[in-house]
């Protein structure tokens, strides 16, 4: 497949540009729009608002929590592309219309620009976050 490699390269370019000059050039922003479509602007907005937190446990297990615009907290996995938001379930899983939802894109962009908040939790707390999602769906 082509698109993931293209998306990855684009995000790397953004990271590189940001590390060199603390600035993301216009053409990279437009590239984001081209590849990710309607998710691009909302994802950038989540980054502007510092909505992404990397949650890390002593074992090294991590996950991401993104505060959505509605005030709801969504969980994104770090080992695969997964998000608990309904848009992910619909656009990515069901319709295969998008690569990512805006929350996962916001996670990558926050990584690229060093805008992730950090939160250290215990193993138990991390497990609870993951289990809580299950309970909601169950």
């Amino acid at each position: 497949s082509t698109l993931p490699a293209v998306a990855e390269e684009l995000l790397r370019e953004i990271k590189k540009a940001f590390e060199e000059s603390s600035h993301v050039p216009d053409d990279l922003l437009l590239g984001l729009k081209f590849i990710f479509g309607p998710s691009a602007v909302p994802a950038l907005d989540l980054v502007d608002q510092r909505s992404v937190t990397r949650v890390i446990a002593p074992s090294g297990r991590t996950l991401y929590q993104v505060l959505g615009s509605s005030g709801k907290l969504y969980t994104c996995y770090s080992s695969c592309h997964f998000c608990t938001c309904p848009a992910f379930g619909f656009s990515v899983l069901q319709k295969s219309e998008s690569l990512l939802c805006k929350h996962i894109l916001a996670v990558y962009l926050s990584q690229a620009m060093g805008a992730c908040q950090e939160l250290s939790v215990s193993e138990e707390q991390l497990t609870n976050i993951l289990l809580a999602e299950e309970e909601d769906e169950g």
Partner: protein
Amino acid sequence: LCRGGLAERLCRLQNRERSAISFWRHQCVSDDKTPSDKSSVLIVKILEIFEECTIQVAICQQLEQSPVTLSPEDAVISAEEPILKVLFTKETTAHLKSRPQDVIHIYPPWQKLLLQNAGVPVIMNTYFSRKVLLSEHSEAREKTSGLTKMLIRKNIISLAQTFRLDDLDDKLHQEPSDNQVACAPQLHNKQHPLALSAVNDSLLDMVESQGAVGWREVQVRVVIQRVYCLPAREGYRSHTQGNKPLCATPGTNSDPPKVRLCLLVQDAYGMFSEVWLQSLSSTDDTEQYCRRWEGKSCCLAGMKILQRTTRGRALGLFSLIDSLWPPVVPLKVPGQSQDSEMMTTKLPPPSFCYILTVQSGEIHVEVDEEEQISNLYQPPAVHGLKEILQINECNERCSFWAQVLYRRLQTKHNVPVDQRDILLFVTDSTLQNVVHGIPKVVAVSVTASCVLGMEIREALSAGSQLVFFKDALWGNGRIICVERTVLLLQKPLLCLAAGADLSKLTGPVRLDELDSTTQANSICALRGTVVGVNESTAFSWPTCDRCGNGKLELCPQDRELLYCNQCSEVVTTPVLKMQLEVFLSCPSRSQSTVKVKVWQRPAQFVLLTMLLFLQTYEVQSVLGKEVGLLNCYVHSVTSHPNCVALEEIVLL
């Protein structure tokens, strides 16, 4: 959307792009000829199409020239022609309706992306594309094929395929600009040079080019004009309005109110900025930072824009900025060479100011303490109190030395002691040496927003102090200490002192005498004769001589003795405290009834009076007694009835 954020910027770019696309499409329809400028047009022939998500991926062959003149049979795949992967969005795909063997012209600004593993180059931003029909034969084919729907393979992307943003091999990663086909847009915008070592000297430049996400390695050189502490309010956060952590943070209610060290800095172009640094748990360090940092140059790095504030919204901040305007050296002019400088006397003071803060908990303020004081620095102009009282303008920042004579805390009991307003009565030699017209003592109100260090607080309660008030506010006949005012015990290194050494007082302190102009909440001295005693409010009570506890109890064992439950001991020598209201006739204010209350440790006169009174319970015994010069605090002055209520005080 955040103002100045990336989302807002992309929105703007996207709108512009959309207009450009619709304009271009319209132009294409009306003008079917090939455009004159063919240098940057990418010409491709589609070999294979498939879909991933909503993006159409076309494996294409790049053609050297428009094969209008060639017949379809000539356009054969040859091994030398480069292969490209061209991506089209859903909308472009619907517009093009392309099929294998179609020739597409892609107009700029398209973008080329080279992948890490050097596969086939990828072409993006292909909004400006149109199909070119090779001949009449293909036109006919186009019409018929348009009716049958083509089946396109759709690749399902695995969720397990995540993106790795870390470069494993930095050296192998080639700069896209080296490998690009000569074409107008470059994917990697190299307009911004590496700023790791570059030190900028313009705050405005940095703010405007970096946006709200923050600056990383960029540094700005500024001069520290003032150092002070601001109360750190919990709710005042920047873009972290999002993230509520799952686990509870340790309770902050029991912590003492936090205080934040702040700098007011100015760049070579005259622009000011307030920089919020770390929280200080004790404010003893403020004096040190003031002494070491004020007037020096420093480099700011890793700052984040908290707010852009204006004159109307931050009166306190701008009154301080106004006191530093106009600058004492000519300013640089943006956009012009460093040699040309502008005269600053006619420049209006700034109307906006950026408030910056540190990113990610690290402080990036490099102050060169060894360096000399900068020319741009304006130390506080010290004046005598007499001069300050004669200032006509309102909300002027003023600095002065003064002896603190008396301190009074406001009496709101629901407010913690260290957050209450304090009233200080101060004087200096310029006021003491005056005969008429100007008060000898001035009241300075210290509000809770003016941060006082522990040292100063203790010193003020211990005794009379000589205090330097830096950047207090004068207005409406009052001096107040607010946010950004600093009270110091030690002399700052640099002051512009007008005239003689204002700090020494010659002779004992004199207060204004009680007269017809005396107002409430002031202090004065009075003399008079006792004309009456308020018998109903007179009483005395014993207090513990160790701790001052006024609520002594009778000893359970021996009802003759007194017991203090705070010290948990018997009080053998209690201190007698008295409350007595005495009416005086004062020649300096003969029309008023003067009522003086004593309820502290009694001073000379009252002791005599009280003893006489208590012994005899005869008002006669105290009537007519002369009262010497008594220092008092004026509680209230009423005109109907004409009465002045005072309280005897002891000066520090």
